[in-house]
């Protein structure tokens, strides 16, 4: 069964001037994780807001846990958890206060709310900061508390809007661990992200969106195959470019890309570190000392490059300038 269905969603802001969703369709199988991957302004937050009943789209159909979002938003709210792009908790109150308040708003008794708050604080490693005001929390702690608040009553469908944006690598790892646990618990999850790596790690399936539309769908493996997997990248002095190019061509089965300006030579490789070692050895044989050498995992940019022929970009170049400025302003005041 599908836990989330969105069909042909269209949503505009600023009286139709900004088309945030432009016929977006997606679905999530029950008990699985869909990663919605897209650059800034692609429409990720707008999608989440529509599905979480916060925004009525101009047109299109959305269903969550079998319930029509437009017709029975109250019923949808009973079965979803939402953690938005920016932590939305009361900063003057403590973590404990917040969880109790949200627990009570989910109609738990004071006792149930206290039990649940204790559990969640433990689960999210926040127990020792439970009685401090949120304003003294780090960004990562805030995000964890925000997520905890959306899990008070175990939701059937959970929406996480860029759960790790702004976290340091350690915080990101922690958050991934937490999300992994949730998924093991059987929740259906729709998460948005700007990082292919994150979608790769967390999601069963990925929907790539751009300008309010899904432009590709598939497992991370199938997307990566499309993109070409890992790339070998070597930066050398100008004098060594030609020789290096030949070496890269030798270890890679695919076409070699040369960036003259950056003095960078790259090509997709399938054998991972083996190709890297091979290339390093060949360079060394010729006495070439690369300025930089490494394997690069495909990024969102690479996905976009191969899907659309252009890199991920926030603004359409053809748009008139004032419309763009306006959109930027709208975003800041959001």
């Amino acid at each position: 069964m599908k836990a989330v269905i969105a069909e042909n969603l269209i949503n505009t802001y600023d009286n139709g001037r900004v088309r945030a969703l432009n016929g977006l369709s997606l679905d999530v199988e029950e008990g699985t994780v869909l990663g919605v991957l897209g650059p800034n302004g692609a429409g990720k937050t707008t999608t989440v807001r529509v599905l979480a009943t916060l925004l009525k789209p101009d047109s299109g159909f959305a269903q969550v846990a079998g319930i029509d979002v437009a017709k029975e938003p109250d019923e949808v709210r009973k079965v979803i958890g939402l953690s938005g792009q920016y932590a939305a908790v009361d900063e003057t109150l403590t973590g404990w206060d917040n969880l109790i308040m949200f627990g009570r708003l989910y109609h738990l008794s004071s006792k149930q709310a206290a039990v649940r708050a204790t559990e969640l604080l433990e689960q999210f490693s926040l127990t020792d900061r439970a009685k401090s005001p949120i304003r003294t929390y780090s960004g990562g702690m805030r995000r964890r508390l925000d997520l905890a608040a959306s899990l008070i009553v175990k939701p059937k469908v959970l929406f996480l809007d860029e759960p790790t944006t702004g976290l340091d690598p350690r915080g990101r790892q922690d958050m991934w661990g937490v999300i992994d646990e949730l998924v093991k618990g059987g929740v259906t999850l729709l998460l948005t992200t700007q990082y292919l790596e994150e979608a790769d790690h967390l999601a069963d399936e990925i929907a790539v969106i751009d300008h309010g539309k899904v432009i590709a769908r598939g497992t991370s493996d199938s997307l990566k195959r499309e993109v070409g997997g890992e790339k070998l990248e070597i930066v050398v002095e100008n004098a060594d470019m030609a020789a290096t190019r030949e070496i890269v061509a030798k270890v890679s089965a695919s076409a070699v890309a040369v960036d003259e300006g950056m003095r960078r030579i790259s090509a997709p490789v399938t054998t991972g570190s083996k190709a890297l070692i091979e290339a390093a050895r060949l360079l060394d044989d010729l006495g070439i000392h690369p300025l930089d050498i490494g394997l690069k995992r495909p990024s969102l940019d690479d996905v976009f490059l191969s899907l659309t022929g252009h890199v991920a970009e926030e603004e359409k170049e053809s748009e008139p300038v004032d419309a763009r400025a306006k959109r930027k302003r709208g975003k800041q005041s959001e």
Partner: protein
Amino acid sequence: MSNFSNGVSDALIITKRQILQLTRVPELLIFSTIQPVMFVLLFRYVFGGSIATDQPGGYVQLLMPGIFVQTVAFTLAGTAVGLSSDMQKGLIDRFRSLPIARSAVVFGRTLGDAALNIVVLLVMGIAGYLVGWRPSSGIFMITLGFLFLFVFGYAMSWIGVLIGLSVKEERVAQNVTFIAVFPLTFLSNAFAPTTGMPKYLQYFAEWNPVSTMVAGCRQLFGLKNEFGATAGSFPSEHPLEMSLIYMVLLMAVFIPLSIRKYNNTSK
């Protein structure tokens, strides 16, 4: 029925949150009461000497109801700023994603601001007493006067809800409320007789809800309404009735508008 009682308990949870904020950050409470007390002292000792009145007990008797009304009128600033800050921080979105009554958050907020007003009125009453305010109408009428003030503050608070949900930024909310309330409190009989104003302003001042409230409270505290403008008009003859009408009107207009706004904030 159970829907209704759920709605009420949801609203009270939001109210409780505000009270909790005051205990977590006591400065909030302290500064909300210092400002009105400062007004009491400033008007009493700075202007008090230059405004002549033959009222027994002097200017302070007329002044206190004015300051009370001004203070509760400004409740709407707190409401507006609080709500717009919740909007900006995304809290309103979170509340809207919860399975709670669609009016719980705004009702809870106005009740919380009203609760704060009880404390503020109490502190001001004491401050007034210390600088010579002596209402003479007996405990029942005095209580009724405070009840009027309390309900007026509550009604005004709903204007604040609409402002708070409509502006995009806390600071804008702050400015808009000041622009809305200051003229109302000064173009009134709160601090000086309206008879010194140009004629057209006198009309405004006479019908101004702040004036009817001030005149009404003066009555309830046992004073003759000496600062009223042109005698004989309905609001100056019947300030209490007129005030009640204003309160009902304010709530009848702004409660539905605010709830609608709350449910559509994203569009």
